[in-house]
């Protein structure tokens, strides 16, 4: 047998081993485990604020940490930092490239980042001496579009790209610290664990991967989706991962059991999931869909308990503030809405 053939056989054997090992610990299902739990009552959130100002589709938004400020990115070529309490625009930053697909707020509140079809991640300093917001760094190395970015601190940021890799950058030097390769399709989304030690990525190879940031390794791979994963997030305690896909479902994967626990689906939902965010306790899963709605799921019982209907076009992004007080949705209709 040739070496290639032997390797293929070994790969298949290992895949079977993983499937078996997952079955061995499957002594119950999440559904059975929570059979005695009461379904959450109907959740009815109202629009409290509408943030108006973008002139084209909004592709991304991200809340600041411990604050009511958030940043949004639109293909009108602007990043806007909003005070969601007053609806005032704190900053309106013109971008070099209007083809922006993602934005992020640094935990410190000192910087924001964005990127898109320019294949670059641009870092902006919000607290410059003369009060002007300027480009601080342009992180260029990806050979595909920038789909998502998230700051670890003011000196490090992680990006995901259509080139199938994720990169950990040193912002100060503008260089790549670590390249995370392994996905076989465009990386569409990433999320950092609450303890900042790990991150997860969702890709067009239908899988989600858990990466150890300092060890620079892929720890686990989760399959099951039947189409591209567009959105990904951590369950608030960092022990589980939630994914949203073009296959119209969301899935919950537990990291310690190394398997899917449940799927959030409904025969009435036939369009892709674009974005997702858990509520503070993790009990609610808010997911944005192509059909202009946000569905609210009871994460334990996997049943829909609410709908946010207020946008006139696709909901492209969603986020829950760090104190859990409000949810923000961004849409192709050019508006952001704050709900609670």
């Amino acid at each position, binding site marked *: 047998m040739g070496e290639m053939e032997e390797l293929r056989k070994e790969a298949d054997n290992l895949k079977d081993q993983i499937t078996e090992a997952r079955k061995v610990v499957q002594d119950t299902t999440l559904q059975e485990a929570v059979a005695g739990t009461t379904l959450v009552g109907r959740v009815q959130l109202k629009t409290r604020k509408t943030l108006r100002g973008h002139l084209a589709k909004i592709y991304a938004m991200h809340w600041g940490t411990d604050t009511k400020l958030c940043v949004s990115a639109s293909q009108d070529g602007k990043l806007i930092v909003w005070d969601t309490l007053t609806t005032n625009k704190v900053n309106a930053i013109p971008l070099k490239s209007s083809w922006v697909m993602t934005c992020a707020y640094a935990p410190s509140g000192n910087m924001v980042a964005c990127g898109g079809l320019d294949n670059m991640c641009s870092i902006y300093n919000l607290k410059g001496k003369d009060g002007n917001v300027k480009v601080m760094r342009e992180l260029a190395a990806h050979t595909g579009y920038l789909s998502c970015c998230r700051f670890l601190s003011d000196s490090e940021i992680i990006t995901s790209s259509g080139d199938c890799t994720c990169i950990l950058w040193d912002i100060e030097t503008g260089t790549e610290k670590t390249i995370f390769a392994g996905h076989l399709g465009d990386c569409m989304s990433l999320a950092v664990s609450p303890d900042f030690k790990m991150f997860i990525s969702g890709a067009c190879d239908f899988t989600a991967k858990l990466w150890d940031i300092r060890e620079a390794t892929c720890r686990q791979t989760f399959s099951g989706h039947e189409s591209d994963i567009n959105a990904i997030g951590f369950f608030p305690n960092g022990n589980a991962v939630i994914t949203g896909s073009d296959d119209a479902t969301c899935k919950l994967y537990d990291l310690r059991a190394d398997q899917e626990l449940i799927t959030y689906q409904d025969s009435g939902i036939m369009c892709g999931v674009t974005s997702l965010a858990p509520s503070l*306790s993790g009990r609610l899963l808010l997911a944005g869909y192509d059909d202009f709605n946000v569905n609210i799921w009871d994460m334990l019982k996997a049943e829909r308990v609410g709908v946010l209907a207020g946008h006139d076009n696709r909901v492209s992004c969603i986020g829950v503030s760090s104190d859990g007080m409000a949810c923000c949705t961004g849409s192709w209709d050019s508006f952001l809405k704050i709900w609670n």
Partner: protein
Amino acid sequence: MSGSSNLVAMKKIVQQLRFEASINRVKVSQAAADLQQFCMQNALQDPLLTGVSSSTNPFRPQKVCSFL
């Protein structure tokens, strides 16, 4: 040429699978119980779950009525 790079790629895949196969796994019953416990413990602190009264909702400033 492409043969040897395919071999290198395949070896990496096998190495990664070996690594992923070797992790310790916790029982689903334990994992499910822990998720449920976290939800329960934090339920009362979850404003979207409990609802926010207008007096404590920062997004809904209290309107003051005054008689003119």
